[in-house]
């Protein structure tokens, strides 16, 4: 790690220390005596068993203009994905011409080994759906490949019932673009990964000693709550401004 020379740095720190009444002292270490994992911060209270949390997650996500469906078994996922992808990757000519050529579709996705359904890529390919998994989006080739698909497909690290949010960490095989660039974002959410509140999720990681490592090793973690929104222009609510306009969760009960 490099420490670039920053003029005034010492003067600034000195002023801060003096204002705190502790001139010449080092600052307290971050988190020293102030970590409060149990501080209630979520407005909406949530508790209950796994099915009721899944129901609440669906209700909260729909309340913020997302959509959600609950599936009992992992083997139902492929069928639903094929239907949704065909519906959303229409060539814009409408259902009348939805013939053979519209059966082929590209989906910007995480690497198959990062998706929670084994063999998903092969099954989708049989239905003419190709998963585009870029390796390096700073190359022209992958940028062009990632720009075309209208649908992005990802898993999630966790989901939060009280707010209808998902936690998506970047990583190897887990590109950020799939949940950001396409018009539609499809996400597969195992019910086992649904937590009642952000506090509960943070506490689980903190108590397991994994919270700080998870942040550092992910480079970026994004918490997504519904489709991209703006009401900057005349207070008219607009969906899909910089991010996806459609956020659809497939909540699946018997997968991990």
């Amino acid at each position: 790690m490099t420490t670039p020379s920053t003029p005034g740095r010492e003067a600034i720190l000195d002023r801060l220390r003096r204002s705190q009444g502790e001139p010449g002292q080092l600052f307290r270490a971050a988190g020293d005596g102030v970590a409060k994992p149990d501080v209630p911060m979520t407005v909406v209270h949530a508790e209950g068993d796994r099915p009721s949390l899944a129901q609440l997650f669906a209700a909260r996500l729909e309340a913020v203009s997302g959509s959600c469906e609950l599936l009992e078994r992992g083997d139902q996922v492929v069928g639903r994905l094929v239907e949704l992808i065909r519906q959303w990757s229409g060539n814009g000519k409408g259902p009348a011409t939805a013939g053979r050529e519209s059966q082929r579709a590209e989906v910007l996705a995480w690497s198959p080994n990062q998706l929670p359904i084994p063999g998903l890529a092969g099954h989708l390919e049989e239905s003419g759906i190709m998963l585009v998994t870029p390796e390096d989006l700073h190359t022209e080739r992958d940028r062009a490949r990632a720009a075309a698909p209208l649908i992005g497909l990802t898993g999630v690290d966790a989901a939060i019932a009280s707010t209808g949010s998902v936690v998506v960490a970047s990583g190897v095989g887990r590109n950020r673009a799939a949940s950001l660039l396409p018009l539609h974002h499809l996400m597969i959410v195992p019910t086992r990964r649904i937590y009642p509140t952000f506090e509960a999720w943070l506490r689980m990681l903190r108590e397991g000693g994994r919270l700080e490592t998870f942040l550092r090793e992910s480079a970026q973690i994004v918490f997504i709550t519904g489709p991209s929104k703006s009401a900057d222009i005349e207070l008219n609510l607009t969906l899909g401004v910089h991010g996806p306009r459609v956020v659809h969760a497939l909540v699946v009960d018997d997968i991990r």
Partner: protein
Amino acid sequence: MGISGCNFAIAQTGTICLVTNEGNGRMVTSLPRVYVAVAGIEKVVSTVEDAFLLWQAASRSATGQNVSVYFSLSSGPRLPGHADGPEEMHVVLLDNGRSRILQRGYGDALLCIRCGACINACPVYREIGGHAYGATPYNGPIGAVLTPLFAGELASAKELPFASSLCGACRDVCPVKIDLPRLLLDLRSDLVEQRASSGGERVAMRFVAGTMQRPQRYERVSRLARWVTRLLPGKRGYVSWLPPPLRSWSRTRVFPRFPVRTFRELWLGRGQRDGS
């Protein structure tokens, strides 16, 4: 290169947090090769939990959402094998007067998480709108505090701390409980000590203070004001032209004439009129 501000900077993990609804915060931290975050030093929070608490407070108080659509936590450049994300990430921690604001006793103003609740609640802001606060990123009650503090000289924005009725609506809605009326009063007192107002204004204020303290002088002045406002041009109950230095005020507004009988006269004559 992508450049962003920063909502919270987590000291424990070296993480920059961005709160957005549109997704611009994701674009700028994910697509360009280089990402630069500019963070005021007051954005630093201790733990991850602190950032989550403030994120939810900001969302709730800004737009009434439980949480914003996106909350992006960037803890460094992309790692080997990552398909996207910046190759370099730089953080500029900006003081720009903040440590001096703390030193001068206005540290509470730096607790602000920029939710804007005080702006929505402020009856002055709701009447006059944002442009009245000048070319500043912050308006409303918090702007009336921060703009003079961030300016090199308090006096360069000396009108702002006075443009408030001190009703306290801002203090009531503030999720981090900044006592904005208190800070506005402190700024007023600093400005008076600095003799920031013009000589004429100071003389006028001394005259008003003296008059308010002496009932007889108050009587005489109000009787005089009644005749003066009746002699000035205007129609019905209003004066449309005031002599300098009040001329600029009457250029855009009318001024009500003082009534023929003062309140004291009405009060004294009250018994005679109902015959009791």
